[in-house]
Every structure is written in structure tokens, then in C-alpha cells.
């Protein structure tokens, strides 16, 4: 081996050694969080993660069960919007396979052509755009909230199965970083409460564990659907941080990360959470 080749080899070896360690794969991240929560909350059955705060409070659980019909009006409003005929005679239902049945469990999903993460709300707006209908505001509970309440009710009881292909791992990683980043004047991270403090009480209410957070949205509060991103925006305000807009890349990545964590859990849409 000539001296020049040896130098090249040495430089290559140094460059490889200097590379940052690759981020853990989504499956490894999920397994680590599952193991941590299992050791923190050994009494919690795997299926109960989808119950959220109600898993830790029999009173909350009983109240939610007693108000099982609390979502009826919202879901009916969403169903009407879902079936409404566009000017071209089509409808939102015609944009999705099986009229929307069992589709919500696979969202958010990576769009390989657009190279971005697509949430259910984005898919709804994409359908409206394709049919030259006015787009909906992702943060409006009366329209988009009601539609997600209905579409997700069509997946009720089916297991969440969000895929993170290799090309989408950086979006998952961005969502993970966001979840663990301390933000706002109060210096909280999402993980401060929902991982470190999972099962404990903040302001009197039990804190839902990270796994399961994405399995039970929207929930119904004061007769309106509260989506996962709406809930995250409320949390950010409580943390003293300016909330990212609904549908922003930051919240979409966070939703992608959180939903992957809930893979395998049964989707439970439209639980009642107070008058």
C-alpha cells in the first residue's frame, strides 16, 4: 500500500469515527418508551393506555362511560359534512377508500411524492382542493373538528398502524425531538408531564402517558371536538410557549411521532371529557 493510499484510508476512518451516532430507529424509540412506562406504571394494562387520564381515575372513567352519547351531535354534524355533495357531485367520502372506513388508523402517513407527512386533516383539505371546494381551517372545531370526529369514529376499535418508512424517519425524529424539548416560560417539555410524570396529577387531573395519547382523539368537551393538535396547542399555551399553528410542520411531525407510539392500540374516538 502506497503512502498516499494509507493517508486516504486513515482520513476515511477518521471521518467515519467522527460521524454522529445514528438516531435510534422508530421501533427502538417506541420500545424504550414502552419499557420506561411499564416500569413506572406496572399496574396499567397495555389496552388501558388508550384511556388516557381516565385510566388513572375511576370517577373520570365512570363519567365518560355515563356520557357515552355526548359525542352524538358532533359526529352527526361531521357525517353531514362528510357526505355533503360538492358542486361536481362528489363528496369527501368519495376521496377515501371504503368511504373513509378504517382509514384514520393509518394517519398521519408519509407522502413519498410530496416528501412530507400528511395528517388526516391535510388529506381532507387535499380532497376539497382537488374538487375546487373552499378549504377548511384545521383549527375549526365546528367543521374540521366535526369531520375528524366522524371519520375517526369509522375506525373505532381498529388498531392504529402508522408506518414510518426510512424516507420519513427524519420527520419522526423531528417529532421526537419536539416532544422532549423544553419550551416556553415554564420550561416544560411534553415528556416532562406525559413520560416523566405519566399517571401523576397536574392541577388535579391525571397525566396521560405518551403511549395512547394519539389513540383517543378527538375527545368531546363542551359539545365540541378537541383534536390532538388542538390539545397540544392548549398544552403549549400552558407551558408559556406560543403555540405552533394547527397543521404546521412542527405539529404534524409531533402527531406523527405520537401516533407511531400508539401503534397497536385500538383507536377510541370521541370520548366525553366534560360539559
Amino acid at each position, binding site marked *: 500500500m502506497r503512502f498516499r493510499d494509507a493517508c486516504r484510508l486513515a482520513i476515511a476512518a477518521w471521518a467515519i469515527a467522527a460521524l454522529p451516532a445514528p438516531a435510534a430507529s422508530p421501533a427502538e424509540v417506541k420500545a424504550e418508551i414502552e419499557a420506561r412506562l411499564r416500569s413506572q406504571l406496572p399496574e396499567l394494562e397495555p389496552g388501558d393506555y388508550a384511556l388516557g387520564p381516565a385510566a388513572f381515575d375511576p370517577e373520570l372513567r365512570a363519567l365518560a362511560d355515563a356520557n357515552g352519547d355526548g359525542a352524538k351531535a358532533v359526529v352527526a354534524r361531521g357525517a353531514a359534512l362528510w357526505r355533503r355533495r360538492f358542486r361536481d357531485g362528489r363528496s369527501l367520502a368519495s376521496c377515501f377508500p371504503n368511504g373513509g372506513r378504517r382509514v384514520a388508523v393509518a394517519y398521519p402517513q408519509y407522502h413519498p411524492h410530496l416528501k412530507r407527512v400528511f395528517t388526516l386533516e391535510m388529506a381532507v383539505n387535499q380532497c376539497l382542493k382537488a374538487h375546487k371546494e373552499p378549504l377548511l381551517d384545521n383549527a375549526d372545531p365546528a367543521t374540521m373538528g366535526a369531520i375528524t370526529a366522524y371519520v375517526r369514529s369509522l375506525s373505532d376499535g381498529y388498531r392504529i398502524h402508522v408506518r414510518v418508512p426510512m424516507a420519513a424517519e427524519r420527520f419522526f425524529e423531528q417529532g421526537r425531538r419536539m416532544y422532549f424539548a423544553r419550551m416556553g*416560560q*415554564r*420550561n416544560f417539555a411534553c415528556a416532562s*408531564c406525559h413520560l416523566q410524570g405519566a399517571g*401523576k*396529577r*397536574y392541577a*388535579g387531573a391525571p397525566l396521560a402517558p405518551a403511549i395512547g395519547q394519539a389513540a383517543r382523539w378527538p375527545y368531546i368537551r363542551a359539545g365540541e371536538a378537541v383534536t390532538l393538535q388542538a390539545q397540544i396547542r392548549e398544552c403549549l399555551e400552558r407551558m408559556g410557549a406560543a403555540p405552533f399553528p394547527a397543521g404546521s410542520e412542527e405539529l404534524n411531525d409531533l402527531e406523527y411521532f405520537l401516533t407511531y407510539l400508539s401503534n397497536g392500540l385500538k383507536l377510541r374516538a370521541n370520548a366525553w371529557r366534560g360539559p
Partner: protein
Amino acid sequence: MRGALLAAIACAAVLPAAAQPPSGAELFARPDKGHCLACHQVPAGAGPSNRSDLGPRLEGARMRALGREALRRILFDPTAANPDTVMPPYGRHRILDSAEIDRIVEYLYALP
């Protein structure tokens, strides 16, 4: 003239109350200030009862064992001693000024 006099009397009656800074107990509870009750419980009679347990229960004996200076340091920036703590850095992030921190310290020090 009589109206002006009445207004002055009314102001004098209202101003001292309005200028009164919030007490340590109020700062401890207020959501825009300490909001300590969101995470901690205090002994019965020392504040509203709650079920929060994200942070430890606060007992007077423990507070007095820590001492005022340590309590002040914890309230100013608890992450300095424990980077993993969930507790907000009240002084460092200017949620509370030093006089407000002092009033909360006195409240904690006097807990039963």
C-alpha cells in the same frame, strides 16, 4: 368641588387595597404566577386542598430544614441543582421577581 372631594375620598379608599402586592399564598396558587398548587399539595389549612402530585408534598418542617436561602435558590432555578426537574425556573425565566420569590419563601417557611 364637592364632587372632587368625594372622588378623592373614594380613591383613597380603593388605592391602598389595589396597591397591595399579592401575598405568598396567592402567588403560590395563581396560575399566572407560581401555580405551585398544580404540582404540589400543602398541609390542610395552609391552602386549598388538591390531588396534585407531580411534585412532592410540601411540609413546613422540610422547608425549614432546607432554609430560606436554599428555597430561594430552588425557586430561582431548580434546574441548576437538578437538570431533570420538571419545576419551572421561576426567577431565571422571570415568572416571578425576587420580591415575589421572597414572599413565597416566607409562605413555605411558615407551613405547618
